C-alpha cells in the first residue's frame, strides 16, 4: 500500500505538481496582492501626485511631495518627536518590563494576581487610554494634580507645558505597553534551562553575577524581540496622541503618524500624506528587517 502511494507520487507529472503549487499558493498570493502590495503601490503612486480631495485637484507632482517634506519644519519636528518617543519609551518599557518579569519570577505569594492587574492596560484601546489619562491629568480636577496638591507638591501642567508634554505622552505610552515587554520576557524566563542556574549555584556565583552573566544574556533574544516590536509600534503610534494631546501644545507632541493623519484626513492633502506615510513605511521596513534578521539568527542558534 505504501509502495503504491510512493509510485503514485513518482508517477505525478511535473505539470500537475506545478498546478498544485499554484493552487495552494494562489489564495495567500491573492491576499498579499490585494491587502499588502496594492495599497503599498497605490499610496506610492499617490505620493507623486498633488491630490486634494476637497479642492478636487489631482495633478502629477513628481518628487515634489518628498522635497516639500524635506523642507517642512513640522515634518522635522514630528520626526524628532517620534524618535524621542520611540527610543525613550522603549528604553523605559524594556527596563521596567524586564525588572517586573524578574520580580515576578521570584514567585512571591499573590504575585499572579498583581501580574494579572498589571497586564490590564495592554487590553485597553490606546485612544481610550489617551482620553482616560487626559482626565486624570486635567489641571483643574484631575486626580493626579489633586493628589499632588493634597501632598503640598507642585501641580505641573502635564499636557500644557511644552517642555513636559512629550515626556507625559511617553510615560502614558509606557504605562500601557510595559506589560507587553513584561509578558514576553517573563515567558522566556519560564523557558530558560534550570540546569545552568543550578550549575552557577554550585560554582558559588553571586545573585548579581547570575543575573548579569547568565539570566540577562539568556533573556537577550526575548528582550531584543520585545524592544524591536515595541519600537516599530511606538514609532507609528497615533491613537494615544489623538486622545491625549492632539499633537500640542503647538507641535510639541505631533508625531509622524499624527501629522500624516492630520494632512490626510483633516486637510485632505492625500498626496502629501502618502509621501509622509511612505517615509514611515521605509523606516518601519528597516526596523522589520532588523527584527526578521534577529529571528533568523535565533532559529540558527536553536538548530
Amino acid at each position: 500500500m505504501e509502495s503504491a502511494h510512493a509510485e503514485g507520487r513518482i508517477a505525478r507529472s511535473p505539470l500537475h505538481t506545478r498546478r498544485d503549487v499554484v493552487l495552494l499558493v494562489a489564495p495567500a498570493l491573492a491576499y498579499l496582492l490585494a491587502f499588502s502590495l496594492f495599497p503599498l503601490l497605490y499610496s506610492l503612486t499617490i505620493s507623486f501626485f498633488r491630490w486634494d480631495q476637497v479642492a478636487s485637484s489631482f495633478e502629477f507632482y513628481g518628487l515634489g511631495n518628498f522635497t516639500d517634506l524635506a523642507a517642512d519644519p513640522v515634518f522635522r519636528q514630528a520626526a524628532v518627536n517620534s524618535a524621542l518617543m520611540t527610543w525613550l519609551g522603549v528604553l523605559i518599557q524594556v527596563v521596567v518590563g524586564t525588572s517586573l518579569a524578574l520580580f515576578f519570577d521570584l514567585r512571591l505569594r499573590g504575585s499572579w494576581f498583581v501580574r494579572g492587574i498589571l497586564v490590564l492596560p495592554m487590553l485597553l484601546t490606546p485612544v481610550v487610554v489617551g482620553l482616560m489619562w487626559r482626565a486624570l491629568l486635567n489641571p483643574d480636577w484631575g486626580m493626579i494634580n489633586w493628589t499632588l496638591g493634597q501632598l503640598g507638591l507642585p501641580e505641573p501642567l502635564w499636557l500644557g507645558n511644552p517642555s513636559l508634554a512629550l515626556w507625559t505622552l511617553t510615560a502614558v505610552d509606557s504605562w500601557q505597553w510595559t506589560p507587553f515587554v513584561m509578558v514576553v520576557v517573563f515567558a522566556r524566563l519560564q523557558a530558560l534551562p534550570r540546569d545552568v542556574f543550578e550549575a552557577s549555584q554550585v560554582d558559588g556565583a553571586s545573585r548579581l553575577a547570575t543575573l548579569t552573566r547568565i539570566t540577562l544574556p539568556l533573556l537577550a533574544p526575548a528582550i531584543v524581540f520585545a524592544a524591536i516590536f515595541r519600537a516599530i509600534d511606538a514609532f507609528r503610534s497615533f491613537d494615544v496622541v489623538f486622545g491625549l494631546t492632539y499633537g500640542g501644545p503647538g507641535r510639541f507632541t505631533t508625531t509622524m503618524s499624527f501629522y500624516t493623519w492630520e494632512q490626510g484626513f483633516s486637510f485632505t492633502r492625500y498626496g502629501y500624506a502618502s509621501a509622509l506615510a511612505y517615509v514611515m513605511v521605509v523606516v518601519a521596513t528597516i526596523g522589520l528587517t532588523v527584527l526578521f534578521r534577529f529571528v533568523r539568527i535565533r532559529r540558527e542558534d536553536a538548530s
Partner: protein
Amino acid sequence: MDQHRAHGGQDLAKQAISDVLAGRISRRAFIGRATLLGLSGGTIAAVVAACGGGTPSGSPAGSVASFGPTTPPASAAAFDPMKYAGEKVRISIVDGERDEAGLKDKIPEIKEKMGIDVELSTAALGALLEQNNQNLRAPESAFDIMHVLGFSVAGTVGADLLQELTPWVADPARTPDGYDLADFPAGALDYCGYFDIATGAFGGDKLYLIPGIHSGSCILFYRKDLLDAAGVAVPTNWEDYLAAAEKLTSGDVAGNSMIGANDVSLFLVDWYTRFITMGGTFTTGSKADKTLQTNFTSAESVRALQHMIDCVPFAPSAVASYGFTEGLDAFISGKVAMMLFWSTIGGGIYAPDSPVAATTETAVMPADAGQTPRAVRGGWGLGIPKNLPDKNKDVAWHLLTYLTSAEFEKYQVATYQTDPNRSSTFTDPDLVEKLPYLPIAGEAAESAQILEVANIPETFAIVGEAAREFNLALVGTQDAATACQKAQDASLAILRTGGHLA
C-alpha cells in the same frame, strides 16, 4: 427657468415683492414665488420682515409644520405626511454635540406620524467630515441626509455634491404649509443654506442646505454676582475687558478664561472676535485672480493676540491647555468670572444642576469704539447628497422638512439645550425663561460674521496652523508678533498650494 429668469425675472420679482407688501399674496406664497424667481435668502427675509413679524399667513405665530398622522391632504398638491410611509431614511449627524439626541427621541414619533424608518448614524467631527467627503464622492451615498459643518460648505456644496433644494421649498406638495424659511436669520441662510457654486461664494439664490441642527456664534458669559461684588461693569470694549479680568481675579476665581489649547476654537472664538472688533480685516485680494492673502501680520492681528496673552495672568493657570470641555468645566465649577465662548454651551451653564445657573448672565462681545460687537458665524446645515436615487432624495427632503421645522427645533432646544437656528426659537418666551441667554445668542447669530476663508477648502488648514502658533504664544514660547508671522507664513503657503495665491 434660466431663460425666464434672464428675461423677466427681475420684473416678476418686483411684482412679487409689491404683491406681498400690499397683502395681495400671503408671505408663504411670496416665499415660494421668490424662491422660484431666485431671490436671495436675505432679500426674502427682509421682505417678509417688512410685512411684520410672525409667520406667514395661514399659519398662527409659532405654529409648526403639519405632521398629523391621519390628516389627509387638502388636495392632491398638498403636503401629505404619510406620502412616504414604509420608506427608510439614513441620517448622518455629528457626535458629541447633542445634535442627535432629539432625533433619537423622535424616531418612534416619526414612524408613527410619517411612517418613515430612521437609521441614525453619528460620528465625531473629524470622522464625520471624512465620511461626508467619501460618501459624496462615491457612486451612491450611504446616507440620505447629511450634516454639513459651515466650514466645510465650500468643499462639499462648492464642489456641487449636494442637491439643490430651492424648488422643493417652494413646492406645496413637497413642503408642509407653515414651513417658514424666512424664520432663519438671513446670515445663517447665507452661510449654511445658499451658495453660489460658480463663484464659490456664500449666499446667492440657490439653496443647498437648511440650517440645523444647532447653530451659533459666540457671546460673553459672565458671573453677575462676581462683577457686582467687585463693582465692575460688563465690559463693552477690550481695554475694559482686560481691566475687569484683572479686578475680578481673586484667590479661587480667575477673572477670565479662554480656549487657549491647540484647538481651532482658540482662533475662531478668542482671536477672531478680538481681531474683527478691533477693526481687522482678515483677507485681502481674491481667490478668483489668485491674490487671496491673509492679514495675520496686521497691527490688529498682533494686537488681538497680545490682548489674549495679556489676559493669561488673569485666567486659570492651565488656560493654555483649555479646550472646549475644560473651559466649560472651569466656568460651571465657578472658577471663572468671564468667558467668551460659543453660545451653544449656554445650555450647559443654565442646566438645572449647574451651580452657576442663577448667577450667570450674557452679553454681546466687547468691541472697540466704532466697531459692531460681533463674532464668527458657526453652525451646521442639513443637506441631501446629489448622488442618491431620486426616490431617496424625495423621502429625505420629506423628513428634512420636519427635522428643520420649528416644532422639532423647539423640542431639541428645550430638551437638550443646543443653540437654535430659527429666530422664533431664539425669542420663544417659554424657552427664554428656561434659557435666558437665548436672546443674546440670537442677537449674536444675527450679527455674526462669516470667516473670510470659509469659502475655500483650506479653511481648516489655515485655522489649524494659526491656532497652533497662537497656542505657543499663550504658552509663552514665542511672542505675539512671531506667532502672527509664523501663522502668516503657513497660511500663505497653504493658499499657494491651494491655487488661491500665485
